[in-house]
Protein backbone atom coordinates (compact mmCIF):
# COMPACT_ATOMS: atom_id res chain seq x y z
CA UNK A 1 0.00 0.00 0.00
CA UNK A 2 2.87 2.34 0.69
CA UNK A 3 3.92 4.01 -2.55
CA UNK A 4 7.05 6.08 -2.51
CA UNK A 5 7.26 8.83 -5.12
CA UNK A 6 9.71 11.57 -5.83
CA UNK A 7 9.12 14.93 -4.14
CA UNK A 8 8.35 17.85 -6.44
CA UNK A 9 10.45 20.96 -6.95
CA UNK A 10 8.42 24.09 -6.03
CA UNK A 11 10.79 26.64 -7.60
CA UNK A 12 10.34 28.74 -10.70
CA UNK A 13 12.87 28.76 -13.48
CA UNK A 14 13.67 31.60 -15.82
CA UNK A 15 14.17 32.03 -19.49
CA UNK A 16 17.64 32.34 -20.97
CA UNK A 17 18.48 36.01 -20.44
CA UNK A 18 21.37 36.62 -22.82
CA UNK A 19 25.08 37.15 -22.63
CA UNK A 20 27.28 37.89 -19.66
CA UNK A 21 29.82 40.00 -21.47
CA UNK A 22 30.42 43.72 -21.57
CA UNK A 23 29.93 46.11 -24.45
CA UNK A 24 33.20 47.18 -26.08
CA UNK A 25 34.72 50.17 -24.30
CA UNK A 26 35.74 53.19 -26.33
CA UNK A 27 39.46 53.81 -26.58
CA UNK A 28 39.10 57.35 -25.31
CA UNK A 29 36.50 59.40 -23.43
CA UNK A 30 37.15 62.39 -25.68
CA UNK A 31 33.95 63.84 -27.08
CA UNK A 32 31.74 61.02 -25.80
CA UNK A 33 28.07 61.70 -25.11
CA UNK A 34 27.36 60.55 -21.55
CA UNK A 35 23.82 59.62 -20.51
CA UNK A 36 22.90 60.24 -16.87
CA UNK A 37 19.93 58.05 -15.98
CA UNK A 38 18.25 58.98 -12.71
CA UNK A 39 16.18 56.39 -10.88
CA UNK A 40 13.89 59.11 -9.43
CA UNK A 41 15.15 58.31 -5.92
CA UNK A 42 15.92 61.38 -3.76
CA UNK A 43 19.38 62.79 -4.51
CA UNK A 44 19.82 60.60 -7.62
CA UNK A 45 20.17 63.59 -9.92
CA UNK A 46 22.45 65.43 -7.50
CA UNK A 47 24.73 62.39 -7.29
CA UNK A 48 24.81 61.98 -11.08
CA UNK A 49 25.57 65.67 -11.57
CA UNK A 50 28.49 65.40 -9.13
CA UNK A 51 29.94 62.37 -10.94
CA UNK A 52 29.47 64.09 -14.31
CA UNK A 53 31.18 67.25 -13.06
CA UNK A 54 34.19 65.20 -11.95
CA UNK A 55 34.40 63.53 -15.38
CA UNK A 56 34.12 66.89 -17.13
CA UNK A 57 36.93 68.25 -14.96
CA UNK A 58 39.26 65.39 -15.77
CA UNK A 59 38.48 64.42 -19.36
CA UNK A 60 37.41 66.08 -22.55
CA UNK A 61 34.03 64.33 -22.61
CA UNK A 62 31.27 65.61 -24.84
CA UNK A 63 27.65 66.31 -24.08
CA UNK A 64 25.90 65.23 -20.87
CA UNK A 65 22.34 64.05 -21.35
CA UNK A 66 20.03 63.64 -18.36
CA UNK A 67 17.25 61.02 -18.40
CA UNK A 68 14.78 59.93 -15.76
CA UNK A 69 13.11 56.53 -15.39
CA UNK A 70 9.38 56.53 -14.87
CA UNK A 71 9.64 54.18 -11.89
CA UNK A 72 12.61 53.18 -9.77
CA UNK A 73 11.54 49.64 -8.84
CA UNK A 74 11.72 47.96 -12.22
CA UNK A 75 14.25 48.03 -15.08
CA UNK A 76 14.24 50.83 -17.65
CA UNK A 77 11.46 50.52 -20.25
CA UNK A 78 12.41 49.41 -23.75
CA UNK A 79 11.70 52.73 -25.48
CA UNK A 80 13.88 54.73 -23.07
CA UNK A 81 16.59 52.06 -23.26
CA UNK A 82 16.57 52.27 -27.05
CA UNK A 83 16.66 56.07 -26.99
CA UNK A 84 19.60 56.21 -24.59
CA UNK A 85 21.44 53.48 -26.52
CA UNK A 86 20.95 55.47 -29.73
CA UNK A 87 21.97 58.83 -28.27
CA UNK A 88 24.78 58.01 -25.84
CA UNK A 89 28.22 56.44 -25.90
CA UNK A 90 28.29 55.73 -22.18
CA UNK A 91 25.65 55.71 -19.46
CA UNK A 92 25.79 56.20 -15.72
CA UNK A 93 22.72 55.28 -13.69
CA UNK A 94 22.03 56.11 -10.04
CA UNK A 95 20.95 55.51 -7.45
CA UNK A 96 19.75 52.14 -6.29
CA UNK A 97 19.33 52.69 -2.57
CA UNK A 98 16.36 50.46 -1.86
CA UNK A 99 15.44 46.80 -2.22
CA UNK A 100 13.80 47.00 -5.61
CA UNK A 101 15.75 49.91 -7.10
CA UNK A 102 19.19 48.51 -6.24
CA UNK A 103 18.31 45.38 -8.21
CA UNK A 104 16.72 47.40 -11.02
CA UNK A 105 19.76 49.69 -11.29
CA UNK A 106 22.04 46.69 -11.75
CA UNK A 107 19.61 45.17 -14.26
CA UNK A 108 19.69 48.47 -16.17
CA UNK A 109 23.48 48.42 -16.37
CA UNK A 110 23.38 44.89 -17.78
CA UNK A 111 20.64 45.82 -20.27
CA UNK A 112 22.72 48.78 -21.51
CA UNK A 113 25.81 46.61 -21.85
CA UNK A 114 23.79 44.12 -23.90
CA UNK A 115 22.52 47.00 -26.05
CA UNK A 116 26.17 47.87 -26.77
CA UNK A 117 26.50 50.86 -24.44
CA UNK A 118 29.06 50.70 -21.62
CA UNK A 119 27.33 51.38 -18.30
CA UNK A 120 28.09 52.23 -14.70
CA UNK A 121 25.39 51.33 -12.16
CA UNK A 122 25.53 53.02 -8.77
CA UNK A 123 23.83 51.43 -5.75
CA UNK A 124 24.24 52.02 -2.04
CA UNK A 125 26.31 49.50 -0.13
CA UNK A 126 23.44 48.30 2.07
CA UNK A 127 22.11 46.59 -1.02
CA UNK A 128 25.05 44.54 -2.27
CA UNK A 129 23.17 41.26 -1.82
CA UNK A 130 20.06 42.07 -3.86
CA UNK A 131 22.22 43.86 -6.43
CA UNK A 132 24.36 40.75 -6.89
CA UNK A 133 21.25 38.54 -6.82
CA UNK A 134 19.83 40.58 -9.72
CA UNK A 135 23.08 40.20 -11.68
CA UNK A 136 22.66 36.41 -11.30
CA UNK A 137 18.95 36.59 -12.26
CA UNK A 138 19.98 38.54 -15.36
CA UNK A 139 22.53 35.87 -16.27
CA UNK A 140 25.56 38.12 -15.66
CA UNK A 141 26.79 37.14 -12.18
CA UNK A 142 30.15 38.93 -12.62
CA UNK A 143 28.69 42.31 -13.58
CA UNK A 144 30.63 45.02 -11.78
CA UNK A 145 28.85 48.03 -10.29
CA UNK A 146 29.59 50.89 -7.91
CA UNK A 147 28.53 50.77 -4.26
CA UNK A 148 28.46 54.11 -2.45
CA UNK A 149 28.23 54.21 1.31
CA UNK A 150 24.62 54.08 2.56
CA UNK A 151 22.59 56.27 3.01
CA UNK A 152 22.18 58.59 0.03
CA UNK A 153 18.61 59.88 0.21
CA UNK A 154 19.01 61.83 3.45
CA UNK A 155 22.33 63.54 2.63
CA UNK A 156 23.05 67.21 2.04
CA UNK A 157 25.17 68.49 -0.87
CA UNK A 158 28.53 68.37 0.97
CA UNK A 159 28.08 64.79 2.11
CA UNK A 160 27.03 63.78 -1.40
CA UNK A 161 30.25 65.26 -2.80
CA UNK A 162 32.20 63.17 -0.28
CA UNK A 163 30.35 60.03 -1.39
CA UNK A 164 31.30 60.75 -5.00
CA UNK A 165 34.96 61.32 -4.08
CA UNK A 166 35.00 57.95 -2.28
CA UNK A 167 33.87 55.99 -5.33
CA UNK A 168 35.40 58.07 -8.09
CA UNK A 169 38.46 55.80 -8.51
CA UNK A 170 36.10 52.83 -9.03
CA UNK A 171 33.99 54.77 -11.53
CA UNK A 172 37.11 55.73 -13.47
CA UNK A 173 38.40 52.17 -13.37
CA UNK A 174 35.10 50.76 -14.68
CA UNK A 175 34.95 53.24 -17.53
CA UNK A 176 38.55 52.47 -18.39
CA UNK A 177 39.99 55.88 -17.57
CA UNK A 178 43.14 56.54 -15.62
CA UNK A 179 42.46 58.10 -12.22
Amino acid at each position, binding site marked *: MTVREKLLN*PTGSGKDTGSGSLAPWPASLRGLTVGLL*GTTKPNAEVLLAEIAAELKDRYDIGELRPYTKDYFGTPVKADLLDQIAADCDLVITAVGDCGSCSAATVADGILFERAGVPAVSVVSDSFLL*PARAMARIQGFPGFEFIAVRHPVASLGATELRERVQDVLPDVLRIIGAAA
Partner: protein
Amino acid sequence: MSIAIDGPLADAAEIRAAMEFYAGQGWTDGLPVVPVTESSLSEFLAATSRDPEEVLFAVPHLNRECTVRLAAINAAMAGCRPEYFPVVVAAWEAIAREPYPKRGIWQSTTGTAPLLIVNGPVRGQIGLNSQGNVFGSGFRANATIGRAIRLACISVFGLHPHQPDQAAQGTLAKYSACIAENEEESPWAPLHVEYGLDPADSAVTALVIRSCVHMESRHTRAPEQLALGLANTIRRTGALIHETSSALVVLGPEHAQAFAEAGWGKGDVRQAIDDRAVNSRAELAAVGKEAISRHTRWRVPASHPDAIGDRASQGDTPDRVPALISPTAILIAVAGARNADVSTVIETFGVRGDAPSSIARVEGAGG
Protein backbone atom coordinates in the same frame (compact mmCIF):
# COMPACT_ATOMS: atom_id res chain seq x y z
CA MET B 1 5.25 10.13 29.75
CA SER B 2 3.96 10.12 26.21
CA ILE B 3 0.60 8.61 25.39
CA ALA B 4 0.09 6.64 22.17
CA ILE B 5 -3.21 7.23 20.44
CA ASP B 6 -5.30 4.99 18.19
CA GLY B 7 -4.82 7.17 15.12
CA PRO B 8 -2.87 6.72 11.90
CA LEU B 9 0.55 5.13 12.24
CA ALA B 10 3.51 7.11 10.96
CA ASP B 11 7.19 6.78 10.31
CA ALA B 12 8.21 9.98 12.07
CA ALA B 13 11.83 9.69 10.96
CA GLU B 14 10.82 9.52 7.31
CA ILE B 15 8.47 12.51 7.64
CA ARG B 16 11.20 14.48 9.37
CA ALA B 17 13.71 13.55 6.71
CA ALA B 18 11.43 15.00 4.01
CA MET B 19 10.90 18.18 6.03
CA GLU B 20 14.63 18.56 6.64
CA PHE B 21 15.23 18.18 2.92
CA TYR B 22 12.77 20.98 2.07
CA ALA B 23 14.25 23.24 4.77
CA GLY B 24 17.76 22.54 3.49
CA GLN B 25 16.74 23.59 -0.01
CA GLY B 26 15.43 26.93 1.26
CA TRP B 27 11.91 26.11 0.07
CA THR B 28 10.12 27.05 3.30
CA ASP B 29 9.10 30.06 5.38
CA GLY B 30 10.92 28.54 8.34
CA LEU B 31 8.07 26.28 9.37
CA PRO B 32 7.76 22.65 8.24
CA VAL B 33 6.01 22.04 4.93
CA VAL B 34 3.90 19.15 3.68
CA PRO B 35 5.74 16.83 1.26
CA VAL B 36 4.20 16.86 -2.23
CA THR B 37 4.39 14.19 -4.93
CA GLU B 38 2.76 13.91 -8.38
CA SER B 39 -0.14 11.89 -6.97
CA SER B 40 -0.91 14.37 -4.18
CA LEU B 41 -0.46 17.25 -6.63
CA SER B 42 -2.99 15.68 -9.00
CA GLU B 43 -5.76 16.20 -6.43
CA PHE B 44 -5.03 19.92 -6.41
CA LEU B 45 -4.89 20.20 -10.18
CA ALA B 46 -8.21 18.30 -10.38
CA ALA B 47 -9.83 21.03 -8.24
CA THR B 48 -9.47 23.58 -11.05
CA SER B 49 -10.32 23.65 -14.74
CA ARG B 50 -7.13 25.62 -15.42
CA ASP B 51 -4.30 24.27 -17.53
CA PRO B 52 -1.37 23.41 -15.25
CA GLU B 53 0.96 25.46 -17.45
CA GLU B 54 -1.23 28.59 -17.45
CA VAL B 55 0.68 31.54 -16.03
CA LEU B 56 -1.16 33.17 -13.13
CA PHE B 57 1.37 35.87 -12.29
CA ALA B 58 4.66 36.86 -13.91
CA VAL B 59 7.40 39.21 -12.71
CA PRO B 60 9.48 39.84 -15.83
CA HIS B 61 12.31 41.67 -14.08
CA LEU B 62 12.81 38.65 -11.83
CA ASN B 63 12.54 36.37 -14.87
CA ARG B 64 10.03 34.18 -13.05
CA GLU B 65 6.37 33.25 -13.48
CA CYS B 66 3.92 31.33 -11.32
CA THR B 67 2.01 28.69 -13.26
CA VAL B 68 -1.07 26.88 -11.98
CA ARG B 69 1.14 23.85 -11.38
CA LEU B 70 3.69 25.79 -9.29
CA ALA B 71 0.87 27.50 -7.38
CA ALA B 72 -0.57 24.05 -6.61
CA ILE B 73 2.75 22.56 -5.47
CA ASN B 74 3.29 25.47 -3.09
CA ALA B 75 -0.35 25.36 -1.88
CA ALA B 76 0.02 21.67 -1.10
CA MET B 77 3.31 22.33 0.70
CA ALA B 78 1.60 25.10 2.69
CA GLY B 79 -0.92 22.59 4.04
CA CYS B 80 -3.93 23.51 1.91
CA ARG B 81 -6.62 20.94 1.20
CA PRO B 82 -7.27 20.44 -2.55
CA GLU B 83 -10.67 22.15 -2.27
CA TYR B 84 -8.94 25.36 -1.16
CA PHE B 85 -7.01 25.54 -4.41
CA PRO B 86 -9.58 27.53 -6.47
CA VAL B 87 -9.25 30.27 -3.82
CA VAL B 88 -5.46 30.21 -4.21
CA VAL B 89 -5.83 30.51 -8.00
CA ALA B 90 -8.18 33.49 -7.58
CA ALA B 91 -5.75 35.01 -5.09
CA TRP B 92 -2.94 34.90 -7.66
CA GLU B 93 -5.21 36.46 -10.28
CA ALA B 94 -6.10 39.23 -7.84
CA ILE B 95 -2.43 39.77 -6.99
CA ALA B 96 -1.63 40.00 -10.71
CA ARG B 97 -4.15 42.86 -11.02
CA GLU B 98 -2.70 44.80 -8.08
CA PRO B 99 -0.23 47.40 -9.40
CA TYR B 100 2.60 47.05 -6.86
CA PRO B 101 3.55 43.34 -6.79
CA LYS B 102 4.75 43.36 -10.40
CA ARG B 103 6.71 46.56 -9.72
CA GLY B 104 9.16 45.09 -7.26
CA ILE B 105 7.35 45.92 -4.02
CA TRP B 106 8.21 42.52 -2.53
CA GLN B 107 11.92 43.33 -2.90
CA SER B 108 11.37 46.61 -1.11
CA THR B 109 12.74 47.73 2.25
CA THR B 110 9.17 48.79 3.05
CA GLY B 111 8.48 45.14 3.87
CA THR B 112 4.92 44.74 2.68
CA ALA B 113 2.88 41.54 2.50
CA PRO B 114 -0.08 40.44 0.38
CA LEU B 115 -3.41 40.43 2.26
CA LEU B 116 -6.28 38.36 0.86
CA ILE B 117 -9.92 39.15 1.64
CA VAL B 118 -12.34 36.38 0.70
CA ASN B 119 -16.04 36.97 0.09
CA GLY B 120 -18.99 34.82 -0.85
CA PRO B 121 -20.23 31.27 -0.23
CA VAL B 122 -16.77 29.68 -0.48
CA ARG B 123 -16.08 31.03 3.02
CA GLY B 124 -18.55 28.58 4.54
CA GLN B 125 -17.71 25.78 2.12
CA ILE B 126 -14.06 25.58 3.17
CA GLY B 127 -14.26 26.94 6.71
CA LEU B 128 -12.65 30.35 6.33
CA ASN B 129 -12.89 32.38 9.52
CA SER B 130 -14.47 35.83 9.33
CA GLN B 131 -15.35 36.21 13.00
CA GLY B 132 -13.41 36.23 16.27
CA ASN B 133 -9.61 36.10 15.97
CA VAL B 134 -9.94 36.85 12.26
CA PHE B 135 -6.30 38.00 12.04
CA GLY B 136 -5.17 35.26 14.41
CA SER B 137 -4.29 31.60 14.18
CA GLY B 138 -6.38 28.47 14.43
CA PHE B 139 -8.22 28.25 11.12
CA ARG B 140 -6.65 25.98 8.56
CA ALA B 141 -8.14 27.56 5.44
CA ASN B 142 -7.08 31.09 6.43
CA ALA B 143 -3.64 29.96 7.58
CA THR B 144 -2.74 27.79 4.61
CA ILE B 145 -4.23 29.86 1.77
CA GLY B 146 -2.23 32.87 2.92
CA ARG B 147 0.83 30.70 3.37
CA ALA B 148 0.45 29.25 -0.15
CA ILE B 149 1.15 32.74 -1.50
CA ARG B 150 4.17 33.28 0.77
CA LEU B 151 5.79 29.94 -0.08
CA ALA B 152 5.43 30.64 -3.81
CA CYS B 153 6.90 34.12 -3.33
CA ILE B 154 9.96 32.45 -1.80
CA SER B 155 10.30 29.47 -4.11
CA VAL B 156 8.75 30.51 -7.42
CA PHE B 157 9.93 34.13 -7.47
CA GLY B 158 13.10 33.60 -5.45
CA LEU B 159 12.10 36.28 -2.93
CA HIS B 160 14.32 35.00 -0.15
CA PRO B 161 14.86 37.37 2.78
CA HIS B 162 18.27 39.06 2.90
CA GLN B 163 18.52 38.39 -0.84
CA PRO B 164 16.06 39.93 -3.32
CA ASP B 165 13.61 40.49 -0.45
CA GLN B 166 15.19 43.47 1.31
CA ALA B 167 12.43 44.15 3.87
CA ALA B 168 14.05 46.26 6.58
CA GLN B 169 11.75 44.73 9.17
CA GLY B 170 8.87 43.18 7.25
CA THR B 171 5.55 42.39 8.86
CA LEU B 172 4.10 39.44 10.75
CA ALA B 173 1.65 39.15 7.84
CA LYS B 174 4.51 37.75 5.75
CA TYR B 175 3.82 34.28 7.16
CA SER B 176 0.20 34.29 6.08
CA ALA B 177 -2.52 36.91 5.69
CA CYS B 178 -5.96 35.73 4.58
CA ILE B 179 -9.22 36.87 6.13
CA ALA B 180 -12.86 36.42 5.19
CA GLU B 181 -15.40 39.22 5.41
CA ASN B 182 -18.07 38.79 8.08
CA GLU B 183 -20.88 39.39 5.60
CA GLU B 184 -23.47 37.93 7.96
CA GLU B 185 -22.89 40.61 10.61
CA SER B 186 -22.19 43.51 8.27
CA PRO B 187 -24.96 46.08 7.81
CA TRP B 188 -23.72 46.82 4.30
CA ALA B 189 -23.15 45.08 0.97
CA PRO B 190 -20.06 42.84 1.04
CA LEU B 191 -16.81 44.04 -0.52
CA HIS B 192 -17.16 41.99 -3.72
CA VAL B 193 -20.72 43.23 -4.29
CA GLU B 194 -19.58 46.81 -3.80
CA TYR B 195 -17.16 46.21 -6.66
CA GLY B 196 -19.69 44.76 -9.06
CA LEU B 197 -19.89 41.02 -8.37
CA ASP B 198 -22.98 39.05 -7.43
CA PRO B 199 -23.57 38.17 -3.75
CA ALA B 200 -23.64 34.51 -4.82
CA ASP B 201 -20.17 34.82 -6.36
CA SER B 202 -17.12 34.03 -4.33
CA ALA B 203 -14.15 36.31 -4.78
CA VAL B 204 -10.70 37.18 -3.50
CA THR B 205 -9.46 40.77 -3.16
CA ALA B 206 -5.69 41.19 -2.88
CA LEU B 207 -4.01 44.17 -1.27
CA VAL B 208 -0.42 45.07 -0.51
CA ILE B 209 -0.29 45.84 3.20
CA ARG B 210 2.10 47.11 5.79
CA SER B 211 1.16 47.75 9.41
CA CYS B 212 -2.03 46.82 11.26
CA VAL B 213 -3.20 49.05 14.13
CA HIS B 214 -6.20 48.44 16.33
CA MET B 215 -8.70 51.26 16.83
CA GLU B 216 -10.36 50.92 20.23
CA SER B 217 -13.62 52.65 20.98
CA ARG B 218 -15.76 50.70 23.40
CA HIS B 219 -17.53 53.52 25.17
CA THR B 220 -18.95 55.66 22.44
CA ARG B 221 -21.16 54.88 19.50
CA ALA B 222 -21.14 58.41 18.10
CA PRO B 223 -20.23 57.96 14.42
CA GLU B 224 -18.25 61.23 14.28
CA GLN B 225 -16.08 60.10 17.20
CA LEU B 226 -15.50 56.69 15.65
CA ALA B 227 -14.57 58.32 12.35
CA LEU B 228 -12.14 60.66 14.12
CA GLY B 229 -10.47 57.74 15.89
CA LEU B 230 -10.01 55.97 12.56
CA ALA B 231 -8.80 59.17 10.86
CA ASN B 232 -6.23 59.87 13.58
CA THR B 233 -4.95 56.32 13.25
CA ILE B 234 -4.52 56.76 9.50
CA ARG B 235 -2.90 60.23 9.60
CA ARG B 236 -0.33 59.46 12.31
CA THR B 237 2.91 61.05 11.19
CA GLY B 238 5.17 58.07 11.86
CA ALA B 239 3.32 56.03 9.26
CA LEU B 240 3.55 58.57 6.46
CA ILE B 241 6.01 57.62 3.75
CA HIS B 242 4.43 58.93 0.53
CA GLU B 243 2.75 62.28 0.03
CA THR B 244 -0.55 60.67 1.00
CA SER B 245 -1.54 57.34 2.49
CA SER B 246 -4.21 54.74 1.80
CA ALA B 247 -5.91 52.28 4.11
CA LEU B 248 -8.11 49.26 4.53
CA VAL B 249 -10.41 49.81 7.50
CA VAL B 250 -11.56 46.47 8.90
CA LEU B 251 -14.50 47.44 11.05
CA GLY B 252 -15.59 45.14 13.82
CA PRO B 253 -19.29 44.31 13.47
CA GLU B 254 -20.19 46.58 16.41
CA HIS B 255 -18.49 49.63 14.93
CA ALA B 256 -20.09 48.90 11.56
CA GLN B 257 -23.49 48.60 13.24
CA ALA B 258 -22.95 51.88 15.10
CA PHE B 259 -22.32 53.67 11.82
CA ALA B 260 -25.32 51.97 10.19
CA GLU B 261 -27.64 52.82 13.09
CA ALA B 262 -26.73 56.48 12.57
CA GLY B 263 -27.77 56.08 8.96
CA TRP B 264 -24.23 56.05 7.55
CA GLY B 265 -23.33 53.96 4.54
CA LYS B 266 -19.79 52.98 3.61
CA GLY B 267 -19.50 56.13 1.50
CA ASP B 268 -20.39 58.31 4.49
CA VAL B 269 -17.78 56.55 6.63
CA ARG B 270 -15.14 57.06 3.94
CA GLN B 271 -16.04 60.74 3.57
CA ALA B 272 -16.00 61.34 7.32
CA ILE B 273 -12.59 59.71 7.70
CA ASP B 274 -11.20 61.64 4.73
CA ASP B 275 -12.48 64.94 6.16
CA ARG B 276 -10.70 64.28 9.46
CA ALA B 277 -7.46 62.60 8.32
CA VAL B 278 -5.56 65.89 8.11
CA ASN B 279 -2.24 66.97 9.63
CA SER B 280 -1.17 70.54 10.19
CA ARG B 281 1.96 71.73 8.38
CA ALA B 282 3.55 72.26 11.80
CA GLU B 283 2.88 68.67 12.87
CA LEU B 284 4.60 67.44 9.72
CA ALA B 285 7.51 69.88 10.08
CA ALA B 286 8.03 68.62 13.64
CA VAL B 287 8.85 65.16 12.23
CA GLY B 288 10.70 66.38 9.12
CA LYS B 289 7.96 65.46 6.65
CA GLU B 290 6.61 68.85 5.58
CA ALA B 291 7.75 68.61 1.94
CA ILE B 292 8.04 65.86 -0.69
CA SER B 293 10.83 64.63 -2.94
CA ARG B 294 10.73 65.76 -6.56
CA HIS B 295 10.12 62.46 -8.37
CA THR B 296 9.11 59.82 -5.85
CA ARG B 297 6.94 62.24 -3.83
CA TRP B 298 8.08 60.70 -0.58
CA ARG B 299 7.85 62.94 2.47
CA VAL B 300 11.11 64.79 3.25
CA PRO B 301 12.07 67.93 5.18
CA ALA B 302 11.86 71.24 3.31
CA SER B 303 15.67 71.51 3.66
CA HIS B 304 16.29 68.34 1.61
CA PRO B 305 18.16 68.95 -1.70
CA ASP B 306 15.34 67.26 -3.65
CA ALA B 307 12.45 68.89 -1.74
CA ILE B 308 9.47 70.45 -3.45
CA GLY B 309 6.14 71.56 -2.01
CA ASP B 310 3.34 69.02 -1.69
CA ARG B 311 -0.07 69.33 -3.34
CA ALA B 312 -1.60 70.96 -0.28
CA SER B 313 1.07 73.68 -0.25
CA GLN B 314 -0.19 74.90 -3.65
CA GLY B 315 -3.81 75.24 -2.46
CA ASP B 316 -5.86 77.74 -0.49
CA THR B 317 -5.12 76.11 2.87
CA PRO B 318 -1.42 75.22 2.71
CA ASP B 319 -1.17 74.56 6.45
CA ARG B 320 -3.85 71.88 6.27
CA VAL B 321 -2.32 68.71 4.78
CA PRO B 322 -4.71 65.84 3.99
CA ALA B 323 -3.28 62.37 4.66
CA LEU B 324 -5.51 60.85 1.97
CA ILE B 325 -5.94 61.90 -1.64
CA SER B 326 -9.69 61.24 -1.61
CA PRO B 327 -12.31 59.20 0.29
CA THR B 328 -11.75 56.37 -2.17
CA ALA B 329 -8.25 55.88 -0.77
CA ILE B 330 -10.10 53.98 1.97
CA LEU B 331 -11.47 50.45 1.57
CA ILE B 332 -13.94 49.19 4.14
CA ALA B 333 -14.52 45.56 5.12
CA VAL B 334 -16.28 44.09 8.16
CA ALA B 335 -14.69 41.26 10.12
CA GLY B 336 -14.20 40.02 13.65
CA ALA B 337 -16.44 39.10 16.58
CA ARG B 338 -19.49 40.95 17.71
CA ASN B 339 -18.20 41.14 21.27
CA ALA B 340 -16.27 44.41 21.58
CA ASP B 341 -15.93 47.70 19.73
CA VAL B 342 -12.58 46.96 18.12
CA SER B 343 -11.59 47.76 14.54
CA THR B 344 -8.28 47.64 12.67
CA VAL B 345 -6.64 50.12 10.34
CA ILE B 346 -4.34 48.44 7.82
CA GLU B 347 -2.01 50.58 5.75
CA THR B 348 -2.26 49.58 2.13
CA PHE B 349 0.43 50.38 -0.36
CA GLY B 350 -0.29 52.67 -3.21
CA VAL B 351 -2.42 55.70 -3.79
CA ARG B 352 -5.84 54.31 -4.56
CA GLY B 353 -8.46 56.88 -5.28
CA ASP B 354 -10.52 54.38 -7.23
CA ALA B 355 -12.12 50.97 -6.77
CA PRO B 356 -9.63 48.13 -6.51
CA SER B 357 -9.24 46.17 -9.70
CA SER B 358 -7.46 43.54 -7.68
CA ILE B 359 -10.50 41.31 -7.22
CA ALA B 360 -10.95 37.91 -8.85
CA ARG B 361 -13.84 35.45 -8.87
CA VAL B 362 -13.35 31.98 -7.36
CA GLU B 363 -14.06 29.28 -9.89
CA GLY B 364 -16.86 26.83 -9.11
CA ALA B 365 -17.75 28.31 -5.74
CA GLY B 366 -20.92 30.17 -6.62
CA GLY B 367 -24.22 29.88 -4.80
